[in-house]
């Protein structure tokens, strides 16, 4: 098994270089003030921490949490019944067609799908032909609709995977023991599907809060989320210190989630 002995350490080194070292660098940058990535004039201070509690950014934090939460919640409310319905299809062909219908949109470019919504939400859109003007650009509703539309499949599939794995005998046992359909759903199926829900929320909440192109297009730049803050600090103002601090906070949240999910999901097959 010599080959394996080489590739694994190499992979670990590769991950350390591309995951751990950037994290450590950003951690250092959080406490520092630099000229972009020029470390020669580095000076350490806590200004970034002062900046992070500047009320100017509170809107962005609140929007990130509220809008992404709403989007994830709507995704969950839609995805759970959808996933449950798909598992119940007896006809395999029909089941596959429905599954395909939910996979297919992911093969259409994400930015273009957002532009699709954008053209529809503009005051002047093709809907004017039907005397309708949605005029939603700039509203939180537009952003939430965009988020749900983009990330719904990422909620459906983890839940579907878990539901599909539930042993039918368990459900039959529940009926045999006298439980009604609703009781079975609430007491048996739902608790068993929790890991799928956790992973679905992770796959929708964080991307919603950190995708900068989506709010940029659907709110015409009026609504900023965490992703927009990070993007503008790294891409426009080159304030790497503040951008790093925000990223480090995000990574910490994700670290905790990763540990949580790894514990719940030993095979790691819920992340797909």
């Amino acid at each position, binding site marked *: 098994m010599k080959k394996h002995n080489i590739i694994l350490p190499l992979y670990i080194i590769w991950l350390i270089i591309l995951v751990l070292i950037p994290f450590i660098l950003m951690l250092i940058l959080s406490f520092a003030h630099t000229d972009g990535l020029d470390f020669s004039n580095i000076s350490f201070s806590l200004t970034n921490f002062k900046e992070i509690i500047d009320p100017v950014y509170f809107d962005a934090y609140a929007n990130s949490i509220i809008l992404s939460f709403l989007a994830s919640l709507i995704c969950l409310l839609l995805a759970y019944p959808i996933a449950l319905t798909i598992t119940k299809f007896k006809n395999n062909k029909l089941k596959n067609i429905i599954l395909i219908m939910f996979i297919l949109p992911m093969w259409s470019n994400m930015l273009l799908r957002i532009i699709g919504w954008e053209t529809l939400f503009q005051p002047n859109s093709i809907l004017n032909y039907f005397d309708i003007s949605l005029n939603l650009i700039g509203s939180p509703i537009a952003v939430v609709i965009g988020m749900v539309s983009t990330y719904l499949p990422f909620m459906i599939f983890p839940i579907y995977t878990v539901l599909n794995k539930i042993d039918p005998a368990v459900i039959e046992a529940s009926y045999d023991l006298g439980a009604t359909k609703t009781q079975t759903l609430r007491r048996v199926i739902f608790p068993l599907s929790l890991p799928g829900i956790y992973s679905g929320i992770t796959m929708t909440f964080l991307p919603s809060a950190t995708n900068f192109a989506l709010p940029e297009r659907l709110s015409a730049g009026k609504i900023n989320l965490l992703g927009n803050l990070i993007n503008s600090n790294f891409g426009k103002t080159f304030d790497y210190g503040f951008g790093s601090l925000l990223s480090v906070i995000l990574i910490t949240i*994700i670290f905790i989630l990763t540990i949580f999910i790894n514990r719940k999901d030993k095979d790691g097959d819920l992340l797909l």
Partner: protein
Amino acid sequence: MIKKFLTTLILIIGILLLYIPILIIMLLSFNNSQRPYEFNGLTFKWYTQIFSDNSLFSAIINSWSIAICATIIATILGIFIALAINRMKQKYKPFVMFLNNMPILNADIVTGVSLMIIFTLLGFTFGRFTMLLAHIFFCIPFVVLSILPRLKQLDNNAYDAARDLGCTHMQAIRKVIIPGIKIGILTGALIAFTMSIDDFIISYYTTGEGFSNFSTWIYSRLNRRTFNPAAYAYNSIITIGSLLILIYINIGIRPGGKKIEKN
């Protein structure tokens, strides 16, 4: 009865939410007017412009070449990494799995920024090479994760039996292990390809020198006159094409095929 009506309604809402933007893009791809709010006749001109707009066409080619290269490299590496992780001591496994899962769970923008920082410090020239490297980086974990559960199901003695019967190490892997995990490999490759070809944020942070894939090409041209609706046309071809392929795979030759069911 009400419950059935409700689930049907939810199914329809879900499908509408996913398909409205795609249908709009298709509509725009046939729109003679370049302004998205007016429709003045059908045209196929955007479909021919996919090939005549050089910057768009090269962005499309870049998307495909990066996705194909990244998928092939990530799949081959992923197989051997998964084999190694499967055989490693339980003690260190959580650490490796933790590092492996980070790129999947991490926000794209954080991954993009991380890579940008490390590539800058390593002195890389941003462009085709850095983008490919980034794509390989985020594709490998998906391949590893789809192969590991299949490896677990595989009988550990199969490899040893193959070796006892005279196979070399590589022969045993090629003839015994790979066929056993074939579905995992295909799923992983498919997910890797899907992630790579549609990627925007990570590509945005790891490209440079005018090298763009389809997504970064669109982003840099939004609201500009250089934006060409041929992008809508290309996207519509991809949507219809993938629909036909998926239907062919699932219904045409293998009814009840389980390949794409997972994600």
